């Protein structure tokens, strides 16, 4: 019933030319996404700024939001800057409501997110 979460890891260059990791999620982000989401985070943990791409995510529930908060916990510990992009207007509102915007900039697209880094 739930669509599997797929996460791929890309790299892009920031304004200064420094590498930025991009975690690209697709499918649903829910309680069954733990391995995909947090497993991908382990591959970028401690290695500089990270972008979260939600442009191919159809459904995020509170369990999925908890996984995103766990990534932000890890980022906070390692001093990594995080920004997100590609959220629908609804999920941008939900992320703002729960306070995620305080720890991860929420941007319309990758270009705006990279520029914020």
């Amino acid at each position, binding site marked *: 019933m739930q669509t599997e979460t797929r996460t791929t890891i890309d790299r892009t260059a920031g304004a200064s030319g420094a590498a930025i990791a991009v975690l690209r999620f697709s499918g649903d982000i829910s309680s069954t996404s733990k391995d995909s989401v947090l497993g991908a985070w382990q591959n970028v943990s401690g290695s500089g700024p990270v972008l979260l791409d939600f442009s191919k995510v159809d459904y995020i529930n509170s369990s999925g939001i*908890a*996984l995103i*908060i766990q990534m932000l916990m890890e980022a*906070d510990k390692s001093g990594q800057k995080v920004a997100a992009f590609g959220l629908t207007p609804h999920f941008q509102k939900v992320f703002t409501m729960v306070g995620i915007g305080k720890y991860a900039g929420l941007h319309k697209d990758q270009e705006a997110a990279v520029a914020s880094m």
Partner: protein
Amino acid sequence: MVATAGTSVEVRLPSRLGFEKVAMGTAASVAQLMGFPAERIEDLKTAVAEACINAIEHGNQLNEKLSVGVILSASDDQLEVKVVDNGAGISKQPPKPDIDRKVHGQEDPRGMGMFLIQALVDEAEWVRDSIGKHSYVRLVIRLDKEGED
């Protein structure tokens, strides 16, 4: 727009995570027939999903022998959704989630569901029955008729 006032739609879900999406889809379809704007339908979908997840996980404890009832009742100006489970209900509202405490490991990163429900619908109430065998959450979203002729 289809005439929906006075109609009721019921869905029965197995207590298995993922089936909340069936209720989401049904609620969205009814709300669309009633003429709700897309933004409010998205709010409703998230609120219904979270109510069903709570019923499946906490009310029915993921017991697949139990089902979750979802009853949608349309009237002229609002849609009421009741999500019924076999649990004892909640005795008190959890505190409002605190993102700083969550990010710093002082609060469970989970526990956003009830907060989201309350934030996204016009009314939300959690009701326990007197013998503790059934409880339900009742959600209401209202059609905003401001600006209409």
